[in-house]
């Protein structure tokens, strides 16, 4: 019985984990609210991207804390469940990388082909409807001849 998971930790560990999670969550919010122009010496990277990376990095730390402590992966003798959990992220990483290999590289051969055709987006429609409330009638779309 002694090797059952979830036994070894103290109740204090739980509280510390909780505090750490709150701090990290707070950190994510703070980073996202931080004004961009105040960071000097970082003009070599798009700051929006950098922020995103930092925020998702913090999220990853939080996830490893939750899985390690609250879900008890850290205390297991057999690492099987950890392998299962990491397997998830491996497969998801492959999913995003390969799908991005498509979406991120479309129009490589004929860049000009990537322009969208004319379609009426619900956003435009809504904007037009709001405009039309005052202007009476909805004007027809100008004809857009195909190529």
């Amino acid at each position, binding site marked *: 019985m002694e090797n059952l998971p979830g036994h070894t930790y103290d109740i204090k560990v739980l509280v510390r984990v909780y505090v750490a999670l709150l701090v990290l969550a707070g950190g994510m919010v703070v980073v996202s609210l931080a004004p961009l122009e105040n960071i000097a010496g970082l003009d070599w990277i798009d700051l929006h991207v950098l922020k995103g990376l930092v925020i998702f990095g913090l999220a990853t730390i939080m996830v490893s804390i939750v899985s390690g402590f609250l879900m008890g992966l850290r205390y297991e003798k057999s690492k099987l469940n950890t392998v299962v959990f990491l397997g998830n992220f491996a497969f998801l990483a492959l999913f995003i990388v390969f799908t991005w290999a498509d979406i991120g590289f479309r129009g490589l*051969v*004929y860049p000009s*082909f*990537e*322009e*969208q*055709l*004319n*379609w009426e987006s619900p956003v435009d429609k809504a904007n037009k409807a709001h405009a039309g409330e005052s202007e009476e009638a909805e004007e027809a*779309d100008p*004809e*857009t*001849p*195909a*190529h």
Partner: protein
Amino acid sequence: METTKTFWLPEQASTFADAVDWAFGLYFWISLFFFALIIGLITYFVLRYARKRPEQMASGQMIHNTMLELSWTIIPLLIVMGLFFIGMRGYWHMRVAPSDAVTIDVVGRKWSWSFDYTQGFSNDTLVVPVHQPVRLRVTSTDVLHSFFIPAFRAKADVIPGRYHSLWFEATRTGVFPVLCTQYCGTNHSFMLSAVKVLEREEYDEWLKGAAEAAGGGGMTPAEFGATVYTKRGCNACHSPDGKPGIGPTWQGLWGKSRPLTNGSSVLADEAYIRQSILEPPTQVVAGFQPIMPPYKGIISDREIEAVIAYIQTLK
């Protein structure tokens, strides 16, 4: 017409058909070798080691042989890597059109093709000159289709909302079928067209004539409307002679009151027909599905007028 059709592959009529067929042929012989090897061994073993007495046991228990196992891991690996490079080279060649290619726009819709030439007219068959790289820029107005010319070994999915492309260079004159290979509904298998490869001079002449005809030159509006009827693929769903189809027939349509699915009815006048062509779902005739693709931005005003004139003649 001479033909290069073989047992496995259709006739060849484009520059890269030969490379594709070569890769196919190479692989065919490789696979035939392995197939014969495996089936031959199995047959031999089954006959040679057949059980003759019920209690007979195996005559040996070879369960492991590193050399054998490594060889049939590594040899297939080397072969498939070779195949990968052959396929990749051929593929990039098929994807990247030469810079002197002429562009023709292809629009797929349920269930017809139209080919829009830069000269400002469109046609229901693809007419191209021989020995001239042609780049097709394809798009769809409704669902996925796929543009396939077996003789050219050329294929590309036709995607609504964006462009996709393919190119080819025809190596000989003739007429070759064009097929839709991505399932697109009721008449998916009737979504056929043809590519007509002409000599350069013939092509130039055709181009001139077609451009003139597209303007309705020398035709009455009703005659022009009749050509639009087939060129724009109206004939896929609407019959001119009262035959039932996917859409309502055009015979006797003009000036009648049309019952709509929403319970109201509307007079079939010019405004109604124009609206039905540009934005079909707004006025669907009772008893029919709202499946017609909108022609807004595709069809010109003159063509609409011609179609209206044509419908007026169908009494």
